């Protein structure tokens, strides 16, 4: 079971107590009545859906009930950190990013290595 650190309960709690609530740090435009439909739909519907480091809102629904923010690697599903709602977007260190990276299986996937048997034959 995945454990998530709740910044309000100040401890790791089982994932099943939480609900994800989409991308974090989306500011509602101050001039909401003046913006065009396209701009509104951009703000309201369009999300980055990043592959890799994501900043998300989570809610400790079956716990303290509070919304908070989390930084997660969407490939490895590892949480880098969580912080209280309203706090600024944190700067991540290289180590934090590296620690949450998925376990890499050799070089890039778009250039597959020759299979071992082929490599053997080439020798």
């Amino acid at each position, binding site marked *: 079971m995945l454990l998530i650190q709740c910044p309000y309960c100040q401890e790791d709690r089982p994932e099943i107590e939480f609900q994800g609530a989409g991308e974090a740090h989306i500011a509602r435009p101050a001039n909401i009545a003046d913006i065009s439909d396209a701009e509104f739909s951009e703000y309201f519907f369009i999300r980055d859906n990043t592959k890799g480091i994501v900043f998300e809102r989570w809610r400790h629904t079956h716990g*303290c009930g509070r919304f908070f923010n989390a930084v997660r690697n969407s490939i490895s599903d590892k949480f880098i950190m969580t912080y209280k709602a309203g706090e600024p977007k944190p700067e991540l260190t290289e180590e934090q990013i590296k620690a949450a990276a998925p376990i890499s299986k050799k070089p890039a996937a778009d250039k597959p290595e020759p299979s071992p048997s082929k490599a053997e034959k080439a020798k």
Partner: protein
Amino acid sequence: MDDVLQIEPLAGRRFAATGIALEPAPFCERFSLRAGPEEVAEVGKEIGIALPVKPKSSKTLKKISALWLGPDEWLIMAAPETGLSAKMSKLDGTLCSAVDVSHRNTAIYVEGPNALAVLNAGCPQNLSLTAFPKGACSRTIIGKSEIILLRESPERFRVECWRSFSDYVWNFLVDAGKSAQI
């Protein structure tokens, strides 16, 4: 309050097996209390119990219990004779929200050396005495139902659940109790 209708959906039920006993808790008055950090002290003074501010902690004084549920949320419970409603009405001039949820919830006592195993059959939290000592409380889940768990002693827990879920929670605990003895 004398005119409080006392609904006890699990009245009459009992269950006991090796190392485990289940019993519906008697009716009590309950309030869902919300208050900001600036009002906490004042609210506590008015109702006569200092509200716990540490996560997962509770305080019981003169048969009134205050359970920390969130940074600005508490469950206040007391036996009917303590006159909790009258105390809560003293909060009139204080910025807070106190909602009577006496009938929304009901409670089950889970007691015995197997209590931990029975609860952990459906509750994902660490209930060891170090992580969840006597007096610890938390909103969490059991099976598919949300509950509020309060540890009254090392082997005695109070499980608060919504009234309409109480039949499910009771039967879940009974099933767990039957398998705990195998």
